[in-house]
């Protein structure tokens, strides 16, 4: 069955099992490996992508559910907040093993795209679904604040 949607700004049609999670469609059918598999149950956030501008867990999102919609993966980040997040991640040396960081960057970007000046409570609410076993949380928090500042400036 073929399903059409917009992936990273490009019209995309995939001939794949409509029940296949978006995560695996993006990774194995399209060939974009930045989005990661961590739990398969929307419990860890490693697979976070944007669906119509909102952070969602692609490991539980059936491909059929994204038909006609806009999907953005780490490879397609373009917005000013996204670039600010990535720059802050480098400036504050956030990643350790790095495996969860695509998902962290996607969640942080969605947060800043919807809230230009998040409080610590906003950060907790937006980021607590993204597990980092290296526990880079302090730096993630600081980097989100730094990115928010740089977007404002």
């Amino acid at each position, binding site marked *: 069955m073929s399903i059409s949607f917009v992936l990273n700004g490009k019209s995309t049609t995939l001939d794949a099992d409509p029940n296949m999670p978006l995560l695996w469609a993006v990774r194995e059918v399209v060939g974009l490996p930045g989005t990661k598999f961590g739990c398969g149950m929307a419990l860890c956030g490693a697979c976070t992508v944007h669906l119509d501008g909102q952070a969602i867990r692609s490991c539980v999102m059936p491909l059929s559910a994204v038909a006609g919609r806009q999907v953005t993966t780490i490879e397609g980040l373009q917005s000013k907040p996204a670039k600010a997040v990535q720059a802050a991640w480098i400036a504050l040396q956030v990643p350790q093993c790095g495996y969860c960081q695509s998902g962290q960057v996607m969640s942080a970007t969605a947060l800043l795209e919807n809230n230009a000046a998040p409080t610590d409570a906003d950060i907790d609410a937006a980021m607590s679904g993204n597990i980092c076993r290296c526990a880079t*949380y302090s730096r993630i928090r600081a980097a989100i604040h730094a990115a928010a500042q740089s977007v404002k400036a």
Partner: protein
Amino acid sequence: MTHDTLTRAPRQPTRRAFLKGAGSATAMALTIGFEWAASTRRAGAITAPVAGAPFAPNAFLRIGADDSVTVIAKHVEMGQGAYTGIATIVAEELDADWSRVRVESAPADAKRYANLAFGTIQGTGGSSAMANSWMQLREAGGKARAMLLAAAAKQWHLPVAELTVDNGIVHHAASKRQATFGSLVKTAASLPVPEKVTLKDPKEFALIGHRAPRVDVPAKVDGSAQFTLDVVLPGMLVALIKRPPLFGATVKSFDAAPANAIPGVVKVVQVPRGVAVVAKSFWAAKQGRDALMVEWDDTSAEKRGSGALMDEYRRLAEQPASAARTEGDAAQAIAKAARRVSASYEFPFLAHAPMEPLDAVVKLGASSCEIWAGDQFQTIDQANAAKTAGLDPQQVSIHTLYAGGSFGRRANTVSDYIVEAVSIAKAYGADGTPIKLQWTREDDLHGGMYRPMYFHTLEAGLTEKGELSGWRHVIVGQSIMADTLFAPMIKNGIDPTSVEGAASIAYAIPNISVALSTIKTGVPILWWRVVGSSHTVFAVEAFIDEVAHAAGEDPFTYRRKLLEHEPRMKAVLELAAEKAGWSNGPMPKGKGRGIAVAEAFKTFVAQVAEVSVDETGHVTVDRVVCAVDCGTPINPDIITAQMEGGIGFGLGAVLYGSITLKDGHVEQDNFNSYRVLRMNEMPTVEVHIVPSTEAPTGVGEPGVAPVGPAVANAIFAATGTRIHVLPFPKPGVA
């Protein structure tokens, strides 16, 4: 009492020291077992120079005609910063331009790339990457620098003494001549490697001790960093294994038909660990595995629950045990003491749960086996893969990729996930088809190789004045090293990884007895970040807090008095207390401050935790102040990051971490039932690094050890309640 009797005997060697000093029997066993594992590949070896060829003066460094500096890492990068640390040491002595430095992973080759702390094994663990590489890589960089200087001197017909190197460029100040490294590689490659080289005075360090940015960060921010999950090879298939529901069960029979009916499933094969579904995609393999019907033979499986196991451990704690450390007569001292304190502590099985579920890609042919993995024990995995495939180790090559976390999980002597992948490729036909074995999170949590369960019982005797006169500590649990190639390190019944942090207790106590009872169960176990100190330090530091309280003394000053003979440990304790404002006195109602100190892998760490406990008993860890002495700080920012991360990792474990068994079945499936620390639970962390010119020691693990007891002691300060069973009780749960 003389000063001498207060001075404790030489410590039990740490695991690292054991591995390095290696009781000669161990060293020999490891050498015999793995010497033949050396690869025949000679990448990076000296070859005759040809035009445009890189300059490769040793196994760790290659300099290109384009000025690129490639450092070859013998250690895996799993988040701990090893690649950056390794590159920093080489680049420092080389005086390289940091922006031109790249890192690539070394092939599996024990001859060139052994971890010098492990004897003849190439691998990463025990927080040893920097410690064992320090002099090796300083010399590698320094010798290359000397050869580049000699090459410039030769090209310019000038004395070497008149030349200097800065940021990848050789200068002659008087004539204002300069040459980049790249322009010198051809001449340098023709020169002999010097026997000796004068290394830098640490005062001249420009990278070491500074905050060189991590080499792996940019690729880990834009999704381009390559993990094993991301390996794609032409014709590659994906495999999942259905494993038995009980440890020790085996396949009785299976029906592949329902799996074969799933579109994309290519083949169903039986392997020693279960039944594998090989498919064209993860999704097909997953659906195929869900459909597969397997009947298991659980005749010899472990069917006990973790409660029954702990009951047995408790019983064993009353029985005679093997002595790990004996000084004076602890039993008599405690019997005669004016006051006695006792407590027991229970520790659960813990999963490593790295973010990247275990995975490996294997391309097995008739006479070769190529492996891609976030490999932590390269030459052990090479040997095990070879044995599984029926090949010689030289026919097995390993591409070590970034590991999406490990915390010890990928460092196991049976190479479980690698062997599984090879066994699937073999059962599939060993026809050169690349196969990626993928574990799911459920596979990870059900898959064993846990930090063992332990039971500790402690007893102390105090004098009238509250001084410690005797200390008795009994540990019960499984041995990590038993039945592995590390078994020769078990001496007189003591697996050093079971007692490190307890037998090595640093406090000055005249009578000490530390003993170990080792038990066998059917649950596969493994080291977990900071190994023995993940439980021993909790027991020691929670108990010494109870002792200080019984003595009516402040827990910081009580510890400090017992550490007069341990300047580095005492210094981190004092630094953490000072920075945390310990002398400000008790905190307001509902809040508490606790302290703990540890030595792990020769690194000293002290932490002060501050907690808030609300009326319902809910604990919030507000702040952790950490002081660390790891010798010469190679990269202060990475040291800070490892302390922050170690605190978060250790905190998640004591708050929530527990793998439990019911009738042999693991009760946790995913991150909903195996809780780990999340963003909203991360305390503010402050890290203070002790300036030092001692040889560097590791930072990947030691920061994990003190956080649990520091928080438990803080909870006591806030509530008057001691914690004796891990993980911490949940509010409202008795």
